[in-house]
């Protein structure tokens, strides 16, 4: 080992110990737990703990509610992530526009939902979404649309959750994208204009390619975050109606902390980890291969 190596390891050791104790060990313990049937009975008497191998995973694949939860989560991710990023990008472009005034004020206002408490905001959104007295249905009523039972109808509950989550989160990505936009050299736009490119061509051929790395990072983080949908259904619908807003994480929470099937819940957690990992890896390829982004 190089002489510097020892010093390096010594300096890194405190951080490594913390990561080991608070991250790696729990992850290994969780993985081990997912191979057992740790439940209420095992909590009372450890001798009833059984090693079940991959049974939890196999059982999971045969549980209709898990597939429904996965379907709900994919619905949320497939609609929510593009919508959220499009909204963030739109807001960032507006803020970045030369004509925009009071940029600081708007940036703060649009970022505000991100730093609010989900539970508090959910109370307000429940009022907004109320079938009879809600502002949203009143506005729709003015347009001649019959009232929608947002949180009671299984077809509308997920769109309501998506709406809420998107509103709550788009500000975060907006700030990152705004920073990305401001880093695009102005000369590129100037030369594009000299070459006769219109607004749309400049956006498609200058802004988007320059923004690709930022967009990929934003997409990965949003994807990973949105897959972990939990607090919104927890405070708004408790998974209902007809379990239409049960997400994978909500399913795991119910199994683990409501029914105390910790072994089974750990298996859910690992499966979710594998899914997020695979999708993030797939997205990263866009970033590595510059041609793929254009």
């Amino acid at each position, binding site marked *: 080992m190089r002489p510097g190596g020892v010093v390096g390891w010594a300096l890194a050791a405190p951080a490594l110990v913390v990561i080991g104790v608070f991250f790696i060990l729990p992850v290994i313990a969780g993985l081990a737990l997912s191979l057992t049937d740790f439940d209420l009975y095992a*909590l*009372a008497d450890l001798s*009833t703990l059984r090693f079940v191998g991959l049974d939890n995973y196999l059982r999971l694949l045969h549980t209709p509610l898990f597939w429904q939860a996965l379907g709900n989560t994919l619905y949320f991710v497939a609609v929510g992530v593009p919508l959220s990023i499009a909204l963030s990008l739109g807001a960032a472009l507006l803020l970045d526009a030369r004509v925009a005034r009071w940029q600081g004020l708007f940036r703060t206002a649009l970022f505000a939902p991100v730093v609010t408490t989900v539970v508090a905001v959910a109370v307000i959104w429940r009022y907004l979404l109320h079938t009879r007295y809600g502002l949203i249905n009143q506005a729709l009523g003015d347009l001649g649309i019959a009232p929608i039972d947002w*949180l009671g109808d299984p077809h509308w509950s997920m769109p309501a959750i998506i709406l809420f989550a998107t509103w709550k989160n788009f500000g975060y990505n907006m700030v990152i994208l705004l920073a990305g936009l401001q880093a695009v050299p102005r000369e590129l736009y100037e030369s594009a204009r000299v070459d006769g490119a219109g607004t749309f061509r400049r956006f498609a051929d200058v802004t988007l390619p320059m923004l690709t790395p930022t967009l990929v990072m934003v997409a990965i983080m949003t994807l990973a975050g949105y897959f*972990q949908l939990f607090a919104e259904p927890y405070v708004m619908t408790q998974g*209902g109606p*007809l379990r239409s807003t049960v997400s994978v994480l909500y399913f795991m929470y119910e199994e683990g*902390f409501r029914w105390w099937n910790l072994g089974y819940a750990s298996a859910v957690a690992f499966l979710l980890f594998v899914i997020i990992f695979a999708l993030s890896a797939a997205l990263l390829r866009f970033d590595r291969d510059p041609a793929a982004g254009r």
Partner: protein
Amino acid sequence: MAAGSPTLPRAIRGAPMRLTQPGNQARRRALQRLAASSALVTLAGCGRADDPRGPVNFWAMGREAEVVAELLPAFHARHPDVRVHVQQLPWTAAHEKLLTAYAGGSLPDLCQLGNTWLPELTALDALEPLDARVADSAVALDDYFAGILDTNVMPTAGGHRLFGLPWYVDTRVLFFRSDLLRAAGHAQPPRSWPEWLAAMRAIRLRGGSRTYGVLLPLNEPDPLFALALQQGALLRDDNTRGAFSQPPFRRALAFYAGIFREGLAPAMSNTQIANVWDEFARGLFAFYVSGPWNIGEFRRRLPRELQADWATAPLPGPSGPDVSTAGGSSLVIFKSSPRKLAAWRLVEFLSEPATMQRFHALTGNLPPRRSAWRAPALAADAPSRAFAEQLERVRAAPKIPEWERIFQEMQLAAERVVQRKQTIEAATTELDATVDALLEKRRWLLARAQATARR
């Protein structure tokens, strides 16, 4: 959800790296001081928790926790040496909190416990049997409604033991609009299923398409559960397998789903009904299967001119008055408590008929002791009388930790039948398969216990 939150702290986490060396040392010293002081606090805390003369920690839920403080002065007057510390838990978080406290060894001395949670905490061996203490005290067990008391008796290896004393009771009866019922030609509330159906049909016929006979919210398992209890056992083989595909439950489900099929009940969950009391006042439905808290709510929320037109009646049974659910809360003492005697003194005090009457006056909660019902506030109260009658006929739910979950699964199966997604046969067969899978560990434990006994 974690969309922004897990990423946000990363920006903040970078900050300490910029700390200069002296700053770091100061920080380390501060941390050391913090660690030392927190160790002291922990030690002091431990000392207090194990002290037999310390205050009795009493966990209570929701409204009961607010009200119990008003009962305590009378208790302190009698037991000046016992201090009580009441902690309020919200109902929605209480179950998790109890299990987590058990796992973390930080249970209180005394707790208010929904009686359907008793099997779970008995399975954890967390509760103190109360038989001996009751025998030595003035608490008269035969004064309690038998069905309610039974929910606190659990089978153990050493026979049946009493693990809690009922604090207040809950069951389901019929709330109804007496004016609508009379107008439809029924002077008396229905006592059997056929009478009930006839009354609902008459009301529907008279009221037209915007009236229903009864409101049975699709996300509430209790009404169907009460009807099913009237038909027979829901589990078989020593509570290790479901009996939902057997004729008794199928009959109950057929009656329940039939009410919806005939258009006598709206297929709605109670999140879809903005205000049950408004709709009841408007006459959207004439019957409502509900519990004691709605006596107070109906008085508060229904318009004055309607106050003479609602009443309660015991739940109709297949062929005459029959059983309903045995719910409510019990007072339990935890095995881990170092202050069991002091905690028991409080249980004794709260179980006295006079205290129960005051408790009823403060909360509207119905007392579990018959002698407490002699108070004029209860004996002369017409809506409460139906409960008094019903409480003589209540039946405990299966006493297994998995029951709460089976209960939910049962309602989901019923919902699928009502929404015409499945037939009664298919839904109950599938329900039994689900329940059998949930009870697999129970069967294994039982087989293991039998094998050890044989050896």
